[in-house]
C-alpha cells in the first residue's frame, strides 16, 4: 500500500477512535447525571409519600423513613439498570449495540 493509502487508513482509524471517545464521553455524562437524578428523585418521591402518610397518621418518623426507603429503591434500581448494562458491554462474543439509558 502506498504512503498515501497508509495515511488515509490512519486518518480513518483516528477519526473512528475520536468518535468512539466522544460517544463514550456523552454516555458517561448521561449515565452519571441520571444516577444522581435517581438518588434525588427516590428520596424526594418516597420522602414525600412518607411525609404525607406521616401527616395523616401523625407519625412524623415516616418522613425520614420514606427518604431512606426511596434511597434504597434508587440504589437498587441503579444497580439493576446500569450494572446490567456494564455487564452486557463487558460480555464476550458479538457486541450488542448499547445506546445507553436516558
Amino acid at each position: 500500500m502506498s504512503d498515501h493509502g497508509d495515511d488515509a487508513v490512519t486518518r480513518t482509524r483516528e477519526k473512528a477512535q475520536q468518535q468512539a471517545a466522544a460517544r463514550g464521553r456523552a454516555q458517561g455524562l448521561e449515565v452519571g447525571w441520571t444516577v444522581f437524578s435517581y438518588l434525588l428523585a427516590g428520596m424526594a418521591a418516597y420522602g414525600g409519600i412518607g411525609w404525607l402518610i406521616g401527616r395523616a397518621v401523625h407519625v412524623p418518623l415516616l418522613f425520614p423513613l420514606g427518604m431512606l426507603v426511596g434511597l434504597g429503591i434508587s440504589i437498587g434500581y441503579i444497580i439493576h439498570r446500569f450494572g446490567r448494562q456494564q455487564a452486557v458491554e463487558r460480555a464476550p462474543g458479538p457486541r450488542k449495540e448499547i445506546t445507553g439509558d436516558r
Partner: protein
Amino acid sequence: MTGDVGVLASNGCHIFNGCGFPAPGLQNFEWKPIFSIGSFHFTKPMLLAILAALVVIVFFWAAFRKPQLVPRGVQNLGELAILAVRDQILRPSLGRRGDSYLPFLVSLFFFIYVMNVFELIPILQFPVPSRIGFVWPLVFIVYFLYLYLGFKNQGIWGYFKSMIPPGVPAPIYVILVPVELLRFFVFQPFTLGVRLFGNMFAGHLLLTIFTVATWYLLSLSVGLLYAAGSFALAIFVFLLETLVTLLQAFIFTTLTATYIASSVEPVH
C-alpha cells in the same frame, strides 16, 4: 455592587490596619441598576447576556455571510466551531439523523460559553449564569423541546412507557413510577440548570475571594507572603475557570443532545 476590589482599594483596607477582611459573598452577585423603567431595573448581568447573544450572532454572521467553497479567515473559525459541536456533541448522541438540531445546539453552546467566559474578561468579569434567573429560561427551552419531541415521536403513552426500560417486573414497575416521574419531570431539568449555575457561582466566588484576599493581605509585613500565596491561588482558580467555563457549556449542550436523542427515539 459592594465589597469588591474597587471599594477595598479606595478604603485602603489591609491586614494589620485594624480593618477586618471584607469577605465576598452574595452581595457580589447583586448589582445596582444601570437604568430603571418603572419597576424594571436593567443591570449588568442583563447587559452581559445581551452582549453574549450579540457576540454569537455577529461572529456567525461574519463567518457565513458570504460563504466560500474554500473557507478563509473568520469562515475557517466558524466552520471549526460548528464542526466541533457536531462531532463532539451532536453526532455522538444523535448520529447523522440529528443534524437538523445542529443550529440549535451550536447557538446554545456558544451562548452559554460566551456568557461563562465573561467571568474571565477584565471589566466584564461576571459569569451571567451565576444568576440562576438566566439559567432557567435555557433549561425551559430544552425541557419543552424534548417533551414536545418525545410526545410527537412516541405518542403520550409511548413516551411515558419508554421512561422505564422493558424487562422490569410488574411490581417493581409500580414502585418505580413515582421515582421515574419525579426524576424525569423535576430532577432532570433541575440538575441541568443547577449544575451550570452552581459551577459558575462557585467559580466567581472563589476568584473574588482570592483576588480580594490578595489585596487585603498586601502590606509591608509578613502579610506580603500571605498575599503572594493568595495571588498564586487566584491565578490557579483563573486557569481552572478557563476550563470550567468550556466544560459547563459542553456538559449542558451534551446533555441536551442526549435528552433530545431519547425523545426522538425510545431507548431499549
